[in-house]
């Protein structure tokens, strides 16, 4: 993508967007197609999926057969570059040495951020998810209802392309007619799970993922997305024509060179660039928001990672979308006479109520799936089916011992052989080797299944981040220090997950791999591990108990917004990416409208 440099910035922009992932991408898309001049800053390098994505490379072609390393945690061919649980020279710290109070922070320093490798699961929050406190007395309500965001969910789904079905399930909203793409046919392990889970009362329905099971309807969608805006319609039509449909091969985590799945770099940024209204500056690590004497944001200060030099970009509106924790870090590092504890932090709540998703997993082996004839099960490169939360009534009646739900993601099938193929099978083989081992691997390959729970965490006072007073990164920017604590709502939920998974495996006639732990604190993944962190600048109506309003606009600084996950006041079990995009679109529409009225 054509880039500007620190030396070729314009004197000022209508808006500055910090971050190029789901939130930043959507924000830049909407603003530029509405005619605003935008500068986007990305801390990582430029990244070109069409040229850099490993598509058909096998694990044989990768060092260590593609196995995970600290340099490439999700495997060699994973799309993430310059990212991971640790980024060299850019540390973060923990307030406690207790591993249970650790928060692990995934970052991707690259254009498009984490959207390049994510699982593409694209769910909607339901009506309950916006009013959780009204329902069970815990956490916080959002200052908006599902109905406020529903039109934007439709728009996002039409723009990025999401497959799925409308099943009419409780708190699992349908999309408007004609919005979704047809879901891929379930694979045999998914059909078997669907059949057996049904006996246990668990609904297994089509997953919703941002993968084009057919080409987007570029003749009609642009007018639905941008009514009355012929400029935007023309550009979006061209961008949609540039995307191919899925060819049913290669894992989505590698990214997609034919642009068949959603990445900010292949879906949001091309039309934004084509508008002529976007300047894109990569390798620009934003340190702080600068303020003018009228108490308004005037721009951002950044470090050029290539030269180490400090620069400043000026804009009438500043929008942080750097990922929840990084945006918090920028705010807390922006100290002025008016805001000695960080810009927009008069409430003292910036960094507070950090949330992740509850995760637990279990695997098993299913004799019915042994020795199947050769089958191509690559499919859409991720889940074809999932189980949305199904125990709302029992939960509300207080029968479960935890307050919020989870959904189940299934794994299995005859996947591309990896460094782990044939590993750890003693529990099935009794330790075979030789010809018997080869027969065993053939027999069990494709019969192994895994279950991952993804559940809602309730925000709490003990989970937050702040600036570490003693430590700076290699750019001289003070780093984050994390505090973390799961409550019993989360650990009990995790225990319920593995108990349920074991029941489904047994119902499938299978064997569970290992013991089924009843203590949820032993199976719950560490904080941050699911990479769904949200919160830190939660939205609300009252400036004393929230940082932003329903427009993701800070209460304190009128022209300062956040369009990543930071404004989320709750973190439903639904993976947050699509809600980030829908909220960013809504916020951006508001920004355009207010800017036209000279209100910003």
């Amino acid at each position, binding site marked *: 993508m054509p880039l500007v440099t620190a030396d070729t910035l314009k004197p000022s922009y209508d808006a500055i967007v910090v971050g190029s992932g789901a939130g930043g991408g959507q924000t830049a898309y909407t603003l530029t197609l509405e005619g605003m001049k935008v500068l986007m800053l990305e801390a990582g390098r430029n990244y070109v999926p069409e040229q850099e994505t490993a598509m058909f490379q*096998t694990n044989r072609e990768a*060092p260590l057969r593609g196995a995970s390393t600290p340099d490439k945690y999700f495997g*060699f061919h994973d799309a993430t570059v310059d990212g991971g649980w*640790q980024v*060299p020279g850019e540390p973060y710290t923990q307030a406690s040495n207790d591993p249970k109070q650790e928060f692990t922070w995934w970052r991707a320093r690259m254009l498009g951020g984490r959207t390049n490798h994510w699982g593409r699961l694209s769910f909607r929050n339901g009506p309950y998810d916006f009013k959780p406190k009204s329902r069970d007395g815990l956490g916080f309500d959002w200052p908006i209802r599902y109905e406020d965001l529903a039109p934007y969910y439709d728009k996002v789904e039409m723009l990025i392309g999401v497959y799925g079905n409308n099943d009419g399930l409780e708190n699992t909203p349908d999309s408007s007619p004609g919005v979704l793409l047809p879901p891929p*046919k379930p694979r*045999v392990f998914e059909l078997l799970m669907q059949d057996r889970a049904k006996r246990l009362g668990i609904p297994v329905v089509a997953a919703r993922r941002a993968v084009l099971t057919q080409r987007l309807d570029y003749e009609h969608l642009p007018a639905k997305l941008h009514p009355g805006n012929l400029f935007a319609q023309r550009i979006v039509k061209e961008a949609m024509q540039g995307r191919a449909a899925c*060819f049913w091969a290669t894992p989505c985590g590698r990214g997609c060179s034919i642009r068949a799945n959603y990445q900010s770099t292949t879906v949001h940024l091309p039309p934004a660039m084509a508008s002529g209204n976007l300047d894109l500056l990569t390798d620009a690590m934003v340190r702080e928001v600068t303020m003018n004497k009228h108490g308004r944001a005037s721009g951002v200060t950044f470090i050029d990672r290539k030269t180490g030099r400090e620069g400043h970009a000026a804009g009438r509106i500043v929008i942080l979308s750097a990922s929840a924790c990084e945006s918090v870090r920028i705010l807390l590092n922006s100290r002025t006479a008016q805001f000695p504890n960080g810009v927009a932090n008069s409430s003292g709540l910036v960094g507070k109520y950090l949330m992740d998703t509850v995760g637990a997993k279990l695997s098993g082996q299913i004799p019915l799936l042994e020795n199947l004839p050769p089958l191509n099960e690559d499919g859409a490169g991720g889940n074809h089916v999932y189980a949305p939360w199904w125990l709302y009534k029992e939960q509300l009646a207080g029968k479960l011992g935890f307050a919020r739900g989870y959904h189940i993601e299934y794994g299995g099938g005859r996947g591309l*052989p990896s460094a782990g193929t*044939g590993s750890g099978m003693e529990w099935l083989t009794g330790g075979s080797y030789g010809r018997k081992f080869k027969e065993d691997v053939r027999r069990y390959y494709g019969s192994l299944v895994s279950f991952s729970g993804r559940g809602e965490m309730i925000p709490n006072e003990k989970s937050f981040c702040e600036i570490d007073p003693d430590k700076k990164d290699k750019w001289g920017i003070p780093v984050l220090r994390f505090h973390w604590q799961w409550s019993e709502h989360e650990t009990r939920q995790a225990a319920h997950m593995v108990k349920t998974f074991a029941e489904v495996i047994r119902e499938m006639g299978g064997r569970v791999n290992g013991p089924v732990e009843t203590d949820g604190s032993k199976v719950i993944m560490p904080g941050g591990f699911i990479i769904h962190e949200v919160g830190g600048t939660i939205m609300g109506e009252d400036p004393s108990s929230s940082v932003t309003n329903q427009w993701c606009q800070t209460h304190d600084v009128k022209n300062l917004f956040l369009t990543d996950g930071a404004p989320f006041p709750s973190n439903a079990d639904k993976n947050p990416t699509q809600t980030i995009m829908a909220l960013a679109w809504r916020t951006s529409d508001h920004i355009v409208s207010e800017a036209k009225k000279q209100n910003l």
Partner: protein
Amino acid sequence: MSANDSPPETGFSRRIERRAAIKWMMTAAASLPLAQLRIRGASPTAIDAKGYGTDPDLIRSYNPGDFWPLTLTDAQRRTTAALCDTIIPADGKSPAASAVGVVDFIDEWISAPYPQQREHRPIILDGLGWMDREAASRFKKGFADLADNQRNAICDDICLESAAKPAFAKAAAFFALFRNLTAGGFYTTPEGTKDLNYIGNVPLATFDGPPPEVLRQVGLA
């Protein structure tokens, strides 16, 4: 996967450490015959190579040795090949592990400068040594020179960790790891992938789901 960084080094302490390290290396070098310094894999611990970094070229096809040197000695490679092929021998469907580059892969693995591989290195090197000592004590030969039934006599004692006698516990842990590496190395090759009847990783016009005979086989038709 600790998220805590070690405390920042001061310039002073780093200088001292480097000076001390150089001094140590000079002393060590002086006390060893030159030939020994050149032996690949002589040390069971020291791997100071660099990894591939956080931004490697993902399009290229790589081979073991491309990023960091392989370090097994010829004798260790010979034992590795023999054990690989005891675990995955040739049969009617596919070749033996050593015939498709699995020895190079295991060498790459234990020579890699990453935490898990550094942890595996002494387990594998000690285990290879144990295999040869055990072969010598039972049959007066190296493991690679044993007949199949002799190899099996040793492997039967160590092929299942949970059932191994205490005297074989460490060797059984080695064997489990070695079998995992052999399998991962083998099934990722074209020959191993074909052995599993994996037929994906090719573009398709449509995805049709399982055919009726598969649904019948699992009782869903």
